[in-house]
C-alpha cells in the first residue's frame, strides 16, 4: 500500500515537472512546426539562472518568500532573452525549410549553448536547495511529502488551466488556433503570423527556462542536465501527440507514473520503461494520443 502511494505521489511530482517542460516544446511544435532541440538549453539556462539568483538572494538573508519570486524572475528573464535571440537571429532564416533541417538547426544551437553555459558558469555543480528545504515537509501515512513538491504539482495544474483558458477564450488563443490549423489561410485572413511565431517562441522559451528554474532547488545543477531533459520531453510530446496541450498533460502523467512505478518496483528498468511506453503508444497511435491524423497528399 505504502509503495502504491509512493508511486502515485512520486509519479505526480515527476509528471508535474515533465508537463512544465513539455508544454513549451509542444506549443512551439504545434504552432511553428519546429521540433526545438534547443529547448533543453532553455531548461539548463533556466536552472543555472535560478541557482545563481537563489544564491545571491539567500546570501543577503532576505525573507524566504521572495526567493520564489527570484526563481520566477530569473527564469522569465533568461527565457525571454534567449528566445528572442534564437528566433530573430537564427530560426527566422529557415522558416519554410524542411522540418528535419530546422531540427538540425536547433540541434546545432543546442550544442553551442551547452558550451556557452559552461563558459558562463563553469563546470562545477551548483546547489540552490534553500527554497526546497525552507518550504518544509510533512508526513502522510509514513511517507514524507515536501511542500515544494506539492507546490510544483499545483503550479503545473494552474499552468494547464491557464493554457487551456488562453487558447480557448482569448483573442490571441484563437489566432493561435487558426495558425495551428492552417498557417497560410490564417495569414490570408490578416493574422500577423510572424508576430504569432515570435510570441509563441518566447512563451515556449520562458516555459522551458521555468521548468529548469523550478527543478534547480531539488537537484545539484550540473552541466549536461539539458541533454536528459530534452529526450524525456520528446518522449512525453510524442506520446501525447506533437503540438497537443492535452497530449502533453496526459503524456506527462503516463511517463511520470510509469517511471515512478519502475523506480519503486524494478529500478533497473527506469530508463527503459519510459521509452518502452513511448514505443508502445506509437505502435498503436503513430500520431500520438491526441493528434489528428494528417491526410495524405497526392
Amino acid at each position: 500500500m505504502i509503495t502504491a502511494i509512493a508511486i502515485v505521489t512520486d509519479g505526480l511530482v515527476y509528471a508535474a515537472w515533465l508537463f512544465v517542460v513539455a508544454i513549451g516544446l509542444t506549443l512551439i511544435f504545434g504552432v511553428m512546426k519546429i521540433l526545438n532541440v534547443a529547448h533543453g538549453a532553455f531548461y539548463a539556462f533556466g536552472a543555472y539562472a535560478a541557482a545563481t539568483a537563489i544564491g545571491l538572494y539567500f546570501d543577503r538573508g532576505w525573507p524566504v518568500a521572495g526567493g520564489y519570486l527570484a526563481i520566477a524572475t530569473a527564469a522569465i528573464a533568461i527565457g525571454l532573452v534567449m528566445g528572442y535571440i534564437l528566433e530573430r537571429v537564427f530560426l527566422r532564416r529557415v522558416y519554410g525549410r524542411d522540418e528535419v533541417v530546422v531540427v538540425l538547426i536547433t540541434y546545432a544551437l543546442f550544442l553551442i549553448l551547452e558550451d556557452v553555459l559552461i563558459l558562463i558558469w563553469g563546470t562545477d555543480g551548483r546547489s540552490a536547495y534553500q527554497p526546497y528545504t525552507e518550504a518544509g515537509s510533512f508526513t502522510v501515512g509514513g511517507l514524507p511529502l515536501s511542500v515544494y513538491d506539492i507546490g510544483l504539482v499545483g503550479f503545473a495544474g494552474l499552468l494547464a488551466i491557464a493554457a487551456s483558458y488562453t487558447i480557448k477564450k482569448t483573442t490571441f488563443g484563437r489566432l493561435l488556433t487558426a495558425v495551428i490549423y492552417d498557417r497560410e489561410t490564417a495569414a490570408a485572413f490578416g493574422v500577423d503570423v510572424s508576430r504569432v511565431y515570435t510570441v509563441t517562441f518566447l512563451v515556449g522559451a520562458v516555459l522551458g527556462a521555468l521548468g529548469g528554474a523550478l527543478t534547480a532547488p531539488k537537484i545539484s545543477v550540473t552541466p549536461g542536465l539539458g541533454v536528459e531533459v530534452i529526450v524525456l520531453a520528446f518522449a512525453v510530446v510524442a506520446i501525447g501527440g506533437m503540438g497537443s496541450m492535452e497530449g502533453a498533460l496526459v503524456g506527462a502523467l503516463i511517463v511520470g507514473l510509469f517511471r515512478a512505478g519502475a523506480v519503486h518496483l524494478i529500478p533497473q528498468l527506469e530508463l527503459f520503461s519510459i521509452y518502452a511506453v513511448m514505443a508502445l503508444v506509437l505502435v498503436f497511435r503513430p500520431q500520438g494520443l491526441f493528434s489528428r491524423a494528417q491526410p495524405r497528399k497526392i
Partner: protein
Amino acid sequence: MTGLRILLGAAILGGLGAAAPFTPLWLISLVTLAMSTGLVVCGLIILWRGGLVPFGQALFFATGAYTVALSGRWFGVTDAFLLIALAVIMAALVAFVVGFLLAQYREIFFAMLSLALSMILYGVLVKSETLGSTDGVNVAQASFFGMKPRGPGYTFALFWLALGMVFSAWVGVSAYLGSIAGQLAGAIRDNEIRVEYLGISVTRLVHLKLTISAALAGAGGALAALSISHVDPQMAYWTTSGGFVFVTILAGAASVPAAFLGALLFEIVRTIAVALLPGGWQLILGSVLLLTILFVPEGLGSLMIRKRATVSEKGAA
C-alpha cells in the same frame, strides 16, 4: 559506376594502405576511426535520399560494437573478419525486426521513433551488469586469419582492414544507389503515393533501406570497437546518433566518397577542437553545423559536384 572509377578508387585506397607504415600511429588510428564513422554515414545516405533522417542510428552502431565485444568475451571469437561479419548480421537482424515497426513512419516520426528505440538499448546497456553497465566492456585484441599482430602492427592491420571495408562499402553502396531500388529513393521523398501507384511497396522498400543502412552501421560499430578496444553505452546514446547526422549534413548525400571525407573532416575538427578548446568542442561543432546548414545546405560534397558541373559546362561551350 564504371570500371575506371573502381580502379581509381582501389588505387587511392591502395596508396593510402601503402603509405601507412610511414605515417604516425595516432594519425592512422584517427583515420581508422573516421572510416568507421564514414561507414555509418554511408548507410545514412541511403536513408537520407529517401527523405528519412534517423536520429537513432546509434542503435545499430552500438549493436555492432557490442556484438564484437561480447562475441570475444563470451565465445572467445577473436578473428576480426568473423567478428565484423557477426556484427553486420546482428545489426541487420535488429533492423529487420524493428523495421516492421519503423518502416511505417516518415519524417519527424521516423526520426523520433528511431531515437526512442536507440534510447531503449541505451537504457538496457546502462542498467545491465552482464553487459558491462556504464563502464562498458573491453574488447580483446583480434586476430587476422590466425595471425596476431601486436603493437604498431595491430594498428596497421586494422587500418588495412578498414580500407578493405571502405572499398567494399563504396562499391556496394554506389551500386545500390544506382539500382532501381536505390533510384526510387528520390521518388519516395518527393511523393510516395505516386510510387505506390507504380505498384511498388514503399514500406518494404524503406524496410530494405533501413536494413542495409543498419548493416553498414553495424560494420562501423564493429570497426570502432576493434579500433578503440572498448565499448560503452555512450555508443547507443542519442548524441552519437546526432554526430552521424552531423557528418551527413556536412558531407551531403550526393556521393559516397564525400561521406568518408566528411567523416575524416569531422574527426579532424573534433581532434583540433578538443586540443585547442578542451571545454568547447561542442561549440565549434555546433557552429560548423549551423554554418553548413545556413550557407551550404546540400553539404560540402555538393561543392565538389557543383564545381565539376561548371567546369564541364565550360568545357562544352
